[in-house]
């Protein structure tokens, strides 16, 4: 009995927290912003789902503990009811007293939305009932076996994701002459009830079938002889390359634009990952290198810049990289002696200084002040490239995509090679304990500067592509938010992990681009994501597994071939 009493107490306190979270989501306006998005037309909107998520999740959490069925379900119900009481009370209060001059988002449309377009008192009761039901459903999800829970959750996620993609999927389906599919799936910017059921079923079945198919496939690959395995790997790689090359054609112009942003930030994050993830130098002014890359490219390639030389992009690129590396050394040298938070503060300052220099009136003859530099020619010199045989017309984002992909792949390969090289080990040691690294013979000065210079070089590539993509550069683009965003990507993905960087960029850049309503709340969401990550999964979404595996290989054989001798080529750098 004591156990269930404590569970109920926990349900009440979690319910209070859940209610507060729901009120917060409502008060910042994010719920109403998303209420225009139909998930299932006429049934539920994304805004409604967003408000439903906290009691569902909390109900699940609270019911995970315990052995007896009844108290667990009661706990979920109680939790939901408590959170519902808070929302209902807030609704009644806000309807009676005008608090709009304090909380500007509490508008009549919001209150109407909260009250399901009913009277405040009826709306309050509905909220209470709904939240209690959601808490109970969450608890049920925790009680049922995972073979039921998993397909159900996957199905729901499938429905939400497909409905979110409606603005992009619908035109693409039309382009590919699949109007029939499009008409079946979507009505009024959301899924129809029938298509929602179908999507749910597909995802639910998929979640059951997929692990089995994968396991069988893996078993067959493992049983194959080494030659076949190599062929399979080769074919997989080839398919991946073909997919990546064809992606802009599949995605269309708008999604390609999103891909370009994701690619840019992936590149930046790969660069910053060297400085922060590998060498452990917390650089908050990384935007400086992005800016230097952009401005140098603009100066060198634009015929109407102050230099006016109008070099072709690929001729200018080596100079840009060199320039950025030198900037890296300039910023790196004065901060060599600083550690941890001091380093972060000083680099933060450097980032701002870079922006102000480009903005300044004194340097206007060179950098153009607020006007920036215009007339940056496209990357390949022409605005449009037609691919023979395939008949692709590449322009704008679908063209920029390719050099960006190329740079990302190069940067990822360089970063991976570095990581397992002698240089990578020195950085690793330095990050762990600078004094001891010195005492084992690591030239800390050189390795720090190397990290800054390499990080700067990769970051400037992003800047260079960015300048050609927009055909101009403006100082306003290079603000501190870029540094923060790139850092958030690394933290979300997992420090030092390269797949993590890609996932982080997709999540933090791709998602907000897809959900334009997010734009306003982007920083709020970043902040929330970072706090949650630090609490729940500080190692990131995709931490370094390879490294752990390597350690286990060393377990089996004495000499993993990774000693000082095996990696001399990398050491030349």
């Amino acid at each position, binding site marked *: 009995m004591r156990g269930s009493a404590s569970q109920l107490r926990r349900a009440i306190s979690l319910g209070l927290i859940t209610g507060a979270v729901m009120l917060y989501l409502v008060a910042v306006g994010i719920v109403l912003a998303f209420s225009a998005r139909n998930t299932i037309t006429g049934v539920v909107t994304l805004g409604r789902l967003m408000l439903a998520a906290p009691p569902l999740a909390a109900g699940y959490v609270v019911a995970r503990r315990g052995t007896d069925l009844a108290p667990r379900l009661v706990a979920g119900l109680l939790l939901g009811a408590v959170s519902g009481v808070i929302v209902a009370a807030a609704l009644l209060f806000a309807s009676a007293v005008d608090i709009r001059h304090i909380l500007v988002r509490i508008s009549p449309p919001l209150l109407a939305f909260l009250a399901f377009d009913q009277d405040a008192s009826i709306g309050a009761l509905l909220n209470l009932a709904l939240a209690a039901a959601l808490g109970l459903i969450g608890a049920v999800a925790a009680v049922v076996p995972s073979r039921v829970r998993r397909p159900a959750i996957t199905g729901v996620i499938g429905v939400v994701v497909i409905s979110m993609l409606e603005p992009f999927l619908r035109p693409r389906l039309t382009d590919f002459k699949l109007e029939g599919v499009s008409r079946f799936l979507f009505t009024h910017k959301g899924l129809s009830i029938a298509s929602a059921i179908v999507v749910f079923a597909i995802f639910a079945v998929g979640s059951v079938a997929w692990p089995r198919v994968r396991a069988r496939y893996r078993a067959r690959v493992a049983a194959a002889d080494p030659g076949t395995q190599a062929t399979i790997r080769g074919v997989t790689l080839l398919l991946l390359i073909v997919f990546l090359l064809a992606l802009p054609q599949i995605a269309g112009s708008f999604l390609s634009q999103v891909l370009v942003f994701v690619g840019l930030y992936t590149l930046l994050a790969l660069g910053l990952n060297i400085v922060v993830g590998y060498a452990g130098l917390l650089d908050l002014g990384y935007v400086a290198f992005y800016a230097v890359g952009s401005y140098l490219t603009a100066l060198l390639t634009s015929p109407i810049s102050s230099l006016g030389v109008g070099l072709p992009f690929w001729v200018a690129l080596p100079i840009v990289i060199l320039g950025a590396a030198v900037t890296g050394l300039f910023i790196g040298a004065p901060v060599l002696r600083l550690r941890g938070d001091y380093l972060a503060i000083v680099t933060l300052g450097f980032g701002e200084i870079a922006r102000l220099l480009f903005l300044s009136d004194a340097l206007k003859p060179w950098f153009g002040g607020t006007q920036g530099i215009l007339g940056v020619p496209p990357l390949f010199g022409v605005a449009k490239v037609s691919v023979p045989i395939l008949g692709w017309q590449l322009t704008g984002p679908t063209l920029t995509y390719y050099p960006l992909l190329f740079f990302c792949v190069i940067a990822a390969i360089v970063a991976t090679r570095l990581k397992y090289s002698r240089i990578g*080990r020195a950085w690793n040691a330095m990050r*762990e*304990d600078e*004094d001891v690294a010195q*005492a*084992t*013979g690591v030239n800390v000065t050189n390795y720090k500067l190397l990290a800054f210079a390499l990080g700067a070089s990769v970051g400037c590539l992003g800047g260079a592509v960015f300048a050609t993509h927009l055909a101009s550069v403006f100082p306003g683009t290079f603000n501190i938010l870029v540094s923060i965003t790139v850092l958030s990507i690394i933290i979300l993905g997992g420090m030092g992990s390269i797949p993590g960087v890609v996932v982080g960029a997709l999540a933090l850049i791709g998602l907000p681009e897809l959900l334009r309503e997010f734009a306003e709340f982007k920083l709020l969401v970043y902040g929330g994501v970072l706090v949650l990550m630090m609490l729940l999964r500080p190692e990131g979404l995709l931490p370094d597994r390879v490294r752990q595996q390597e*350690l286990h290989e060393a377990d089996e054989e004495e000499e993993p071939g990774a000693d000082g*001798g095996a990696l001399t080529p990398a050491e030349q750098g």
Partner: protein
Amino acid sequence: MAHMLQLDDVHTYYGNIHALKGVSLEVERGEIVTLIGSNGAGKSTTLRTISAIQRPREGRVLFEDRELQQMPPHDVVKLGIAQAPEGRHVFARMSVYENLQMGAFSRPGVSITADVARVYDLFPRLKERRTQKAGTLSGGEQQMLAIARALMAHPVLLLLDEPSMGLSPILTEQIFAIIADINAQGTTVLLVEQNAQMALNVAHRGYVLQTGRIILSDTAANLAANQQVRQAYLGEI
């Protein structure tokens, strides 16, 4: 050629704090020399000064007639001076093997297989734990790892900072046996210790450091018999 290592009137400061007030000492090839003294006497500072992690404001540090005091620390390691720092200074998130690999950092392009085998022979415990993260080792194991890592640099002079710190008496005894063993294999050792008893047992000569000054220097046997030392450091009344 004179002494292997010679400190000549070395003054080292931490900011305004005068930590070493004119320390002079010599270490000859093949010796174990111990530096004993109480907490804060400047023992670790002396080792950090030799390793060039800390720079002396005055005086000279000579190693085989070369001045170390202006050299960057990574070059000092290349000359063959390796330090096992005090306490838990291992690379905690690296495996034991990776720590050893880092120990050989000053000798690029050389296979370390034989050296790893050698330190595993000296410290069988490390072999058992070679894939484990160093931060998860016990205090004694971390101490062993710090020494093993220093040995990976093939030092001609090994600087040991408080190897017995925080260890059980049995482990301390084992560590000191290993130090004698390493020395017998040809490595000169400069040993900093609070455990004067053990240090004087294993060392040939010793210095007594007190508030940044050398107050006594003699053979280990004579120091162990010295009334002043016995009272101050060997716990006799």
